[in-house]
């Protein structure tokens, strides 16, 4: 290679320079920094060179931190609701729209409206529906139809707060599953249904023998996205319950934010982030492996 050629190739790198520089500074560096932070005690105010090295103390503390594991269980509960209720709704709607029903495009447009809204906005709007007083929409309607005794402070009673947050989350999220499932359904060749019908299969049999097997990869994607998306829920909670009443709607991200903002414990928040990330990673891998086994059967 001569000198001109080297220079020619060197100038090629100018094309990727801005992207790579930003990527290194704001993705790669934070990724590594997270592990470093997790073994230090640092408050974000002292100069970094005065941070105290504490080895794995944060991880040991985290194992015994009951409020952390409670937040994990609560996020898990919301995820369970999203996996069953939200995805069942999404699948039912997608199947209906795939049947060549009238105005399917309009439905598609409307169902994907909530997902494009910010979680903060969604939370603030739903605050009113679940408002504890008479003018809360849900309480108002319950009273109107004679079920006034059921009216309650939906978002500030321990019994109902978490389930209400889960409902808001499902409202915002089912459009995602719907869009992906519908795209999957529409990619199934119509001839397969035709062939199944000629072979004498009824609607249920062709659903079981044609739709389900072909949709397995799409189901895997939807389930993983639901788990990852729901476990990391935070904005709806910030806008509605802020973790209350009494930690009953705390989730991992809000715990991390509390560690950061209340007491500026960067190390502890980082340890939470690492443990949480590992759990999500393991769950996704296990899920992919299991679905591959199921597929081979």
């Amino acid at each position, binding site marked *: 290679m001569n000198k001109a050629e080297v220079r020619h190739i060197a100038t090629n790198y100018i*094309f*990727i320079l801005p*992207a790579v520089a930003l*990527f290194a500074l704001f*993705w790669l560096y934070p990724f590594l920094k997270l592990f470093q932070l997790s073994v230090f005690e640092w408050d974000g105010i002292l100069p970094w060179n005065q941070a105290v090295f504490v080895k794995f103390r944060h991880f040991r503390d985290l194992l015994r931190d009951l409020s952390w594991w409670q937040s994990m269980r609560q996020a898990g509960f919301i995820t369970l609701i999203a996996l069953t209720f939200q995805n069942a709704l999404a699948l039912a709607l997608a199947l209906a729209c795939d049947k060549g029903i009238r105005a399917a495009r309009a439905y598609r447009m409307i169902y994907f409206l909530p997902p494009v809204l910010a979680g903060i906005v969604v939370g603030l709007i739903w605050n009113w529906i679940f408002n504890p007083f008479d003018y809360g929409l849900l309480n108002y309607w319950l009273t109107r139809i004679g079920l006034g005794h059921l009216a309650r402070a939906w978002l500030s009673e321990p019994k109902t707060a978490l389930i209400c947050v889960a409902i808001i989350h499902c409202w915002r999220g089912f459009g995602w599953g719907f869009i*992906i499932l519908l795209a999957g359904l529409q990619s199934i060749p119509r001839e397969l249904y035709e062939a199944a019908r000629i072979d004498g299969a009824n609607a249920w049999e062709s659903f079981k023998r044609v739709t389900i097997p072909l949709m397995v990869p799409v189901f895997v994607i939807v389930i993983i996205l639901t788990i990852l998306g729901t476990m990391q829920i935070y904005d709806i909670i910030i806008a509605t319950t802020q973790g209350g009443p009494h930690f009953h709607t705390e989730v991992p991200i809000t715990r991390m934010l509390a560690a950061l903002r209340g007491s500026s414990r*960067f190390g502890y928040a980082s340890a939470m982030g690492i443990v*949480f990330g590992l759990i999500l990673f393991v769950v996704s891998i296990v899920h992919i492996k299991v679905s591959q086994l199921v597929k081979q059967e």
Partner: protein
Amino acid sequence: MENPIYYRVKKIFSSMFLQMFLVGVAATCIFPLLWMFGSSLKTQSTVFSDMSLFPKNPHWENYYIAWTKGEFGVYFFNSVFYTAVTVVCIVIFTSMAAYGISRLRMPGKNIIFYAFLAAMMIPIPGAFVALYAILINLGFINPGTGVDLLDNVIKRLGYILPQINQGLSLGIFMLKTFFDKIPKDLEDSARIDGCGKFGVYWHIALPLAKPAIAVIVIINVLYVWNEYLLAMLILTDKSLMPLQRGLMVFQGAHMTQYPLLMSGITITVIPIILVYLFMQRQIITGITAGMAKG
């Protein structure tokens, strides 16, 4: 054979039932938004008693009050500014990088491409903690240059740069697959006409990639406009806050000013709903493209 009328009736009923189900779900999607809009036009004294969806005497001045006294005008311009700068930078940086990776000779470019892909797939829910620490250490949070104007520029950069990074992976992934399909002849003829490699990128590749760029723009507009976490952590100055952050500040300070809060929310969602209505196709393409990587 069974009675054909039985089948006809069954079919009509089942499709009626189906339509009712679909309409019902659609109504729950739209109703909260209509309620938000209607409430934004009521007054503080009627908002809790007037349960009509749209008030008889709409108080449009609520929007003026929210815009000025509620400072949603400031938040709105901040959101527009952050979104515009971030998205323009994402388009330029990702198209350059994707073009370089796709068409130019660069030892090691595949490793870089796979690094971007990996970043898209690995969830790091704690990244914001480290990002916040880095922004503090680099002086983006409290620049302390002594010049207010310069301080504000640096603080705004601290909010914009990490968000540009967020959009890199998907953009590079989508544009690279696009540039890979451009025939070599087209480039060669431009070269013969005297175009340098920047010329080919700018005059040939970029215009051809318009459909893909439209998708990238829309997806990132939605993302940046709706961002909250980083804004909450690093922006403490009202004059620098975007809409989502402003909404929470307003709600904290004027808990009971429901009509004004609803006006603020309406101001926040109207641009996003308009973008959505006009760009649905691109949004759905972008989502399915994002899926394909998984």
